[in-house]
């Protein structure tokens, strides 16, 4: 098998040969080529052999091509002559040929890349055996907007489905157990140093996980690998990381627990690396049985929404009916939870809002708009796919228009040919055939160039889009080749038919008499096509300007806190709860002007709870919360509008809380203006769960962005880091934030040495604690990563569209210059200056551009307006951006036609007029 694979000759070349070489030659040619190929493979290597195979094949193609494609009985000669005429006219008008092929190449290449991208995005998770029968169970987003879906469910959903719904063959749960900073895992071996890594992609899965998902096992048994509580399944790459080349099965890895102890797991299975196109991405799975006690104790909880639940439905199950059926589950099963945790009945808790369960097909998970968050891997953006899909089609249309335009424009040059041929007895049908044949030839050449271009530029595009697109595997895929082939035929036919019908309709007598006016007939159509092209291009320019503008706007937005020069050290919790030692040591370092500890860092403050104001009948509201010490708020530069910060001197402060203005507002205590008469300070916030602890408000800070600026500022509560009445006291990640003193840390080498110092300090205390850090401004920036990426790609495609439109304009200008040569010559003789001619000539085209600007502006306005609704903070849609875009389009267009105008205007009239 392997041997045959190595001897396989390039399939595309063979395909071409079959198409174009007469069948009687094929057997011996293939035989000869194969023979040489085998020899070369042995003597010179694969690349050389393949390369030479192509050369030989192309050579044979040119020598023996008979165009099987169009071949009927005896029109071999006909085809040859058609080919010859096409070739001659292509050669005669080199400029047009180059413009035509260039435009087609760019257009096809762009849409090919976009097509690959869309195909890539829409075929996630297709490698599972049961892909069509796997569903994720989502529920109503009970923490936020109940009408949205939420990808995580409580552990009890799986239990309920197993018990009540026989339509499910299997139901499995997967739990994210690593915190935000990842899980520390080490490999202890006697000989060498311990290997220690922080694993982000570390989850707990139930033992039937692999009954549903077909991830490939290299070693171990999928049925039992996750059965034992200490069972652990790792991927090949992870195994290499910890163990190198050693045998791995049965070896152990230790996972650091929240309390600092190490828990041992035994490796019971090795997986091939998880395919890139899987929405579940993991390096390590441990058995869910490892937390069996915790799970059993809390399994009834419907609000422990950290699990993802997947179900495999039985064959032939009607999903519609099943979805209806499972709606009875939440009222039946969640009531215990609402009673025990919130002391409310199910109906009181939902208050009429729908607590539904949803079945989301596996194939749609990656690319669906809702729910937009899950823990286990990448999510795609349906918006990008739509936007780029639209752009792909548009660019393709633009390049086809270009092609049609240029073909009709040069028609007058071929009018004489048509006339002569008609006089010689050529039928209209033959002429039409000729022109369509030529256009298919052009499109074919353009496609071939485009495929090459894509192959060479794909690497760059992948870097931009952070994807792994490949073209090569498709080149041997018959479906892909079929699509490309029919595309060439279709596009060639469509864009060739207009010029074909138009050109072949010339009346020979008129044409031969020299009435070239016939060549100008299509002017109206051509002009409207140019307008169309520029409308699209200008609209794209405007859109990409606004995308950039929005990105600059958000990054320069005032967050209400000081995000610059803040270094954040992670994994502080591993140094123990009391971190005064390290804090004092770092505070003594002159590189830092301020230092503070917190248990979450903006823009990643995700925790929140339900609270209400003290007093009767006060509504329950959701408020985000995080723990911090007073120094941290000082470091952020949070501005107090009422009350004060935590004071380390006052012991009672640890039970106080600090709110932001928004939180005060949602608790019903008024706004900043009313604080004088009705101060929130001294009031109490009550937990709407568990023990209903009361907490006194000691301060109110001005609203600042603690999440991405894509969102409006929500209500926030800062809890004292030492508050031991709070349920998660002593648990969770913590961070030390350090404000860099810009007088000491001036450049990157200073920064590096400061980082080294911090790392050494941490090493001294506990060498097993990993050192990792981040900068707050970069974190805020990275929340706009996908928008930035989109912006860059959009710029690229806009440039493509503009280039294509300009190629077309350039071609038309060249044609027009040729047509009007005599007119301009006469004008010059009669005394018109060069500049006057220049204006006269360009005005014909600038008029078109102006119309395009008028059409494009409202279109772009609508698009930009729609896009901006995604953002909480929007850049204004300023008029000047439209004007700038219009102006740049105009300049680009003028440059494109400038050369032709100048050439036309500077001609010596004697040269032009002397023939007559």
């Amino acid at each position, binding site marked *: 098998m392997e041997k045959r694979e190595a001897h396989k000759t390039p399939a595309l070349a063979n395909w071409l040969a079959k198409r174009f070489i007469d069948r009687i030659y094929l*057997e011996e040619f293939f035989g*000869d*080529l194969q023979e*040489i190929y085998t020899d070369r493979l042995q003597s010179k290597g694969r690349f050389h052999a393949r390369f030479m195979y192509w050369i030989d094949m192309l*050579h044979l193609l040119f020598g023996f091509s008979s165009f099987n494609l169009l071949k009927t009985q005896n029109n071999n000669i006909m085809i040859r002559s058609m080919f010859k005429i096409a070739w001659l006219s292509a050669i005669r008008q080199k400029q047009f040929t180059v413009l035509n092929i260039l435009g087609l190449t760019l257009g096809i290449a762009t849409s090919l890349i976009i097509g690959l991208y869309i195909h890539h995005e829409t075929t996630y998770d297709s490698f599972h055996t049961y892909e069509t029968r796997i569903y994720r169970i989502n529920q109503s987003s009970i923490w936020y907007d109940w009408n949205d879906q939420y990808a995580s469910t409580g552990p009890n959903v799986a239990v309920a489905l197993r018990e009540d719904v026989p339509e499910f063959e299997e139901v499995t749960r997967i739990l994210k157990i690593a915190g935000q900073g990842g899980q520390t895992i080490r490999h202890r071996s006697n000989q060498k140093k311990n290997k220690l890594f922080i694993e982000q992609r570390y989850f707990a899965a139930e033992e039937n996980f692999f009954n549903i998902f077909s991830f490939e096992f290299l070693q171990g048994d999928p049925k039992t690998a996750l059965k034992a509580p200490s069972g652990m399944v790792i991927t090949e790459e992870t195994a290499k990381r910890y163990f190198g080349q050693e045998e791995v099965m049965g070896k152990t890895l230790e996972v650091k627990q929240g309390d600092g102890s190490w828990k041992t797991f035994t490796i019971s299975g090795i997986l091939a690396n998880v395919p890139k196109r899987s929405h579940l991405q993991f390096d390590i799975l441990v058995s869910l049985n490892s937390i069996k006690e915790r799970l059993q104790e809390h399994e009834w909880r419907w609000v422990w929404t950290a699990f993802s639940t997947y179900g495999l439905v039985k064959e032939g199950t009607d999903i519609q009916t099943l979805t209806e059926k499972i709606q009875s589950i939440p009222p039946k099963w969640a009531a215990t939870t609402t009673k025990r945790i919130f002391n409310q009945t199910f109906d009181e808790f939902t208050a009429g809002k729908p607590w539904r369960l949803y079945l989301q097909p596996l194939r749609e998970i990656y690319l669906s708009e809702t729910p937009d968050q899950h823990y286990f891997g990448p999510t795609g953006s349906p918006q990008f796919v739509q936007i780029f899909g639209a752009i792909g089609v548009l660019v393709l249309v633009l390049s086809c228009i270009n092609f049609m335009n240029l073909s009709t424009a040069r028609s007058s040059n071929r009018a004489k040919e048509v006339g002569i041929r008609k006089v010689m007895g050529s039928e209209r049908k033959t002429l039409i055939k000729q022109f369509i044949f030529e256009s298919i030839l052009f499109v074919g050449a353009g496609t071939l160039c485009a495929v090459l271009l894509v192959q060479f530029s794909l690497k760059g595009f992948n870097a931009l889009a952070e994807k792994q697109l490949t073209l090569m595997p498709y080149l041997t895929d018959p479906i892909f080749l079929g699509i490309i082939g029919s595309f060439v035929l279709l596009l060639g036919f469509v864009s060739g038919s207009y010029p074909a019908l138009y050109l072949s309709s010339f009346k020979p007598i008129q044409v031969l008499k020299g009435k070239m006016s016939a060549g100008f007939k299509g002017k109206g159509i051509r002009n409207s096509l140019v307008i169309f092209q520029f409308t699209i291009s200008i609209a794209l320019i405007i859109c990409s300007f606004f995308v950039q503008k929005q990105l600059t706007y958000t990054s320069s937005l005032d967050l209400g806190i000081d995000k610059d020069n803040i270094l954040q050290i992670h994994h502080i919790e591993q140094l123990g709860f009391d971190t005064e030692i390290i804090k004092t040591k770092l505070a003594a370092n002159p590189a830092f002007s301020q230092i503070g500890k917190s248990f979450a860092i903006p823009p990643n403050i995700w925790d929140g709870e339900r609270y209400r104001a003290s007093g009767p009948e006060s509504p329950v509201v959701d408020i985000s919360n995080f723990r911090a010490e007073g120094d941290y708020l000082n470091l952020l530069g949070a501005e107090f509008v009422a009350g004060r910060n935590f004071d380390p001197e006052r012991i009672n402060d640890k039970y106080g809380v600090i709110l932001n203005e928004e939180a005060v507002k949602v608790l019903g205590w008024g706004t900043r203006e009313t604080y004088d008469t009705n101060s929130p300070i001294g009031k109490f916030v009550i937990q709407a769960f568990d023990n209903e602890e009361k907490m006194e408000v000691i301060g109110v800070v001005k609203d600042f962005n603690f999440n991405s600026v894509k969102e409006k500022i929500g209500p926030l509560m800062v809890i004292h880091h030492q508050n031991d009445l709070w349920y998660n006291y002593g648990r969770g990640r913590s961070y030390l934030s350090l404000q860099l003193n810009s007088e000491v840390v001036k450049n990157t080498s200073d920064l590096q040495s400061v980082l080294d110092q911090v790392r050494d300090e941490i090493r001294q205390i506990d060498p097993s604690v990993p050192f990792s850090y981040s900068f707050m401004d970069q974190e805020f920036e990275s929340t706009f990563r996908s928008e930035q990426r989109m912006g860059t790609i959009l710029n690229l495609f806009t440039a493509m569209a503009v280039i294509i439109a300009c190629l077309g304009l350039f071609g038309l200008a060249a044609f027009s210059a040729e047509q009007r040569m005599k007119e301009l010559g006469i004008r010059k003789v009669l005394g018109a200056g060069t500049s006057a001619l220049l204006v006269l000539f360009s005005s014909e085209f600038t008029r078109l551009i102006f119309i395009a600007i008028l059409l494009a502006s409202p279109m772009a306005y609508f698009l930009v307006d729609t896009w901006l609704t995604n953002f909480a903070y929007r850049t204004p849609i300023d008029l000047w951006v439209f004007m700038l875009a219009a102006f740049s389009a105009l300049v680009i267009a003028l440059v494109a036609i400038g050369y032709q105008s100048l050439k036309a205007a500077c001609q010596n009239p004697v040269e032009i007029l002397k023939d007559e």
Partner: protein
Amino acid sequence: MKNKGLGEFEELVLLAVCILDGGAYGVSVKREVEKHSGRSILLGAVHITLYRLQDKGLLESELGGNTGKRGDRRKRLFKITDMGMRQLQAAQDVRQRMWQLIPQLNPNMS
């Protein structure tokens, strides 16, 4: 069309076919010509020439014989015709006569 004589490459190919005596097909002809002339030749050029010579009636061919290397495909084996032999001979004669007229090479004549 009157026979216009042989081109240089055509002559080489014809000679190769004669040397190979029944075993002449694309690849073997290519190798033979490469071996004697010391230049590398594209397979396509050989094929084009072989077929041109066949069209001129100097070669004849039939399909036959295969090897595993070729993926079980037959070869087209070329053989020289009587006319081909005559042409080759004629070309050789022309050269021979002209060689004999080069004075430097024939001290007897001077």
